[in-house]
């Protein structure tokens, strides 16, 4: 079995799977259950100054697909609504009972040096392994000058990170919001402030649905709704992109990354690690299925590594970074064509209608006298867009096959048709 231990910001972890700061890490009871289930660490639900916040009733909204699978949920919950000392006492207790597991203390405060430093010191004294700055919460707390209202201003990211670095001598994680135009500005600011690691992404701002009877956004609170933080498998592509941008940016590539965003299973985890993540944080998947999902995350990741011959996570960490490039670095001479395996085709016609109506009219449709329906790719018209292979309901029935054209690697900046080619 592969070695799944990892180190992030100097903190050793028995596996890369931590629970993110959220309802599942709200108190002793949940955290102990998570550790019993096999989670290596938790980022305790964000702590603020006393008096604690008061939360709304009706906190989550959902985005289903037609099969009622949850694509994503959003929430309007605030930070921990329990007194600070209750949380700190429980952190001390868990630390004592579970010495091999990691606890990171998440915190937020208004943009005030004393507030940040005093709270960071209190949390550090409870024995946490590190502190995570919640600069991402996009609902409620931002209206009080915290969360994403700080995370959307690079100077404030740098400032708060520095304050916490100055106050405590344990690792500092700066957690970033995706609700910005360029994640690199935020990541560079965190690094400038001295962060040991960055955690991303926090939730994406959203109105998840509108109740057409109430004519109000969901979750609906006494007839009204507000925007909330979107999470779950739907946000994974956004998170992958932001992690990749940081991992391949020369200014930020050496900072540790605690990746968050729609991680539901071992494959998602492996993808984030391949893009450079040092550790992983999970929330929504656990909220949907319970803590037991970590079993398959561990076993699946281990089996994948065994199959590929990776002995440690470092053996494949970041291997996909070098292949993640700007569009201008892609090969314009690459050509791929759809090939339909007629033996496994079930004749549904989805490829034909998708191509005919919305793409390049490159899949013909013939009906034989006996009713047999045949769908054929017209190579000259196929641009290799992948749409047919994506919508085909039969796994591996439509394969995209690269054409061996023996042409050289040619980027757009080098392309003869690029009129800007010779312009400096």
């Amino acid at each position, binding site marked *: 079995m592969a070695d799944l231990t990892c180190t992030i910001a100097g903190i050793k972890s028995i596996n890369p799977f931590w629970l993110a700061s959220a309802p599942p890490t709200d108190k002793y009871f949940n955290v102990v259950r998570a550790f019993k289930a096999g989670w290596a660490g938790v980022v305790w639900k964000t702590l603020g100054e006393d008096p604690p916040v008061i939360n709304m009733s009706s906190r989550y909204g959902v985005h289903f697909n037609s099969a009622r699978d949850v694509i994503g949920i959003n929430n309007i919950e605030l930070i921990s609504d329990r007194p600070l000392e209750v949380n700190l006492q429980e952190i001390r207790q868990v630390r004592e009972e579970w010495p091999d597991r990691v606890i990171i203390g998440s915190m937020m405060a208004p943009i005030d040096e004393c507030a940040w430093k005093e709270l960071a010191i209190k949390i550090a004294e409870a024995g946490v392994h590190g502190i995570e700055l919640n600069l991402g919460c996009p609902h409620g707390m931002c209206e009080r000058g915290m969360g994403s209202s700080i995370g959307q201003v690079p100077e404030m990211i740098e400032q708060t990170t520095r304050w916490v670095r100055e106050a405590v001598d344990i690792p500092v994680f700066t957690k970033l919001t995706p609700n910005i135009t360029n994640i690199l500005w935020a990541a560079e600011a965190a690094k400038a402030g001295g962060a040991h690691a960055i955690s991303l992404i926090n939730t994406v701002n959203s109105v998840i649905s509108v109740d057409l009877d109430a004519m109000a956004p969901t979750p609906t609170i006494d007839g009204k709704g507000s925007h909330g933080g979107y999470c779950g498998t739907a946000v994974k592509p956004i998170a992958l992109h932001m992690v990749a941008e940081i991992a391949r940016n020369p200014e930020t590539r050496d900072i540790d990354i605690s990746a968050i965003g729609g991680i539901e299973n071992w494959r998602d985890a492996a993808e984030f690690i391949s893009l450079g993540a040092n550790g992983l944080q999970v929330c929504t998947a656990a909220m949907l299925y319970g803590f037991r999902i970590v079993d398959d995350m561990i076993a699946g990741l281990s089996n994948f590594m065994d199959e590929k011959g990776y002995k440690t996570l470092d053996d494949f960490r970041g291997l996909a970074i070098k292949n993640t490039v700007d569009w201008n670095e892609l090969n314009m001479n690459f050509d791929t064509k759809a090939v339909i395996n007629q033996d496994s085709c079930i004749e549904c016609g989805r490829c*034909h209608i998708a191509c005919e109506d919305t793409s390049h009219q490159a899949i013909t449709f013939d009906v034989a006298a006996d009713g047999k329906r045949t769908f054929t790719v017209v190579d000259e018209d196929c641009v290799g867009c992948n749409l047919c292979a994506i919508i085909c309901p039969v796994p591996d029935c439509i394969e995209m096959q690269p054409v061996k054209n023996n042409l050289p690697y040619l980027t757009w900046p080098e392309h003869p048709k690029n009129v800007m080619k010779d312009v400096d």
Partner: protein
Amino acid sequence: MNHKNHRAAYNKILAKQNANSFFDELHSPFNKAMALKEADHCLYCYDAPCIQACPTSIDIPTFIHQIKTGNVMGAAHTILKENIMGGTCARACPTEVLCEQACVLNDDAGKPVEIGLLQRFATDHLMAKSVSHPFRRAARTGRTIAVIGAGPAGLSFAHRAAVLGHDIHIYEARDKAGGLNEYGLAAYKMADDFAAREVDFLLGIGGIEIFYGTSLEQDLSLPDLSLANLSLNNLQDKYDAIFIGVGLGGTNDLGLDGEAMSGIADAIDFIENLRQTDDLSRLDLGENIIVIGGGNTAIDAAIQAKKLGSPNVALVYRRGEDEMGATAFEVELARKNGISIHLWSKPIILHGKNSITAITFEHTAIKDGKLTGTGEAYILDCDMLLKAIGQKLAGTGLQDLATKDGKLVISENYQTSNKKIFAGGDCVLSGEDLTVQAVEDGKQAAIAMDIWLRDN
């Protein structure tokens, strides 16, 4: 338990029960969760094979997609605009040889989408929830059409013709509409008086009047005294056109001595009696019942007889299982219900004096391409013989129209040899003993007649 006690015990159960209260439904309907889960299997095929396989060409992928999006009323509308008896067809269609057989998932996942049950989910929803009829009539044409027979073909015709703006008078021999939906389908397929509810729904379009107890040349209570009697000649004078959907009122005989003995009945009459009686304990029911025939009517009669408590029910068919008119699903259902099935056998002697007591069967085989007796015989005890060996045109009043093989000949426009008289359903040569085909005939005949009426 001996037979006498057996019967007595069952009669206690059957007392005061009618077909609606006694028979459990063959298929439980989907609830919302089941419907959504099943709908999710549908691939939403383009130009889907299931549409081609449906005699009424219901746009099946679209209605299933509509169920998925929560537009169940729209799904029902998609079904009903092609097949106004979509509710009955959802219950009675042999989907295993129609839409579901064509489903592309048969090839891959091995299990087709349960189209019939999804169709029922949608149509039941509309019938339960809709406050008004889902279709509207075109401007009145001023034309009035006579329809003979209020079965699936006649009702489907009447509905479509009414939508097209014509007024309809239906002449129905019995005292209820619905035809075989009401009288002939197995009770466990049409639970909860569905046939009658569907007729009420269909008539909601307006412009259709039904005169019960009236049939060609046997008019018992003619509504209109200007009709000297209900003959095609008189009807032609009074109406702009006529549609005949009389079904097959006659039944075939075995052609054996003793067929008039008591204990011998047509399976179709047996089903009618059990569906219409108020008290199933008063129904004639043998203890050694033999049903002769291989179609769905034979299976329906045999299974219902068994469910009513008859201890021994056998089905005898002169050919093999592959040649049976009943689908493989129906044959399997009969076996599951304890019916013993005897293949390659034909009756040659009916035993008994006043009542039937036994039947001698001869084994059969295909010899030189023809079905012949092998000379080997066996005897089965029998106190009730139900014949289900096919039906034929009753004929009364239709003598002037061209027929072939005992059924009405029609053109591709559904016209009989008399241009003013159209026909469809089981009574025409192309009829298939399928509700869904009768519905399609009625619909297409109405469209064809509408075009014809514009020039005549």
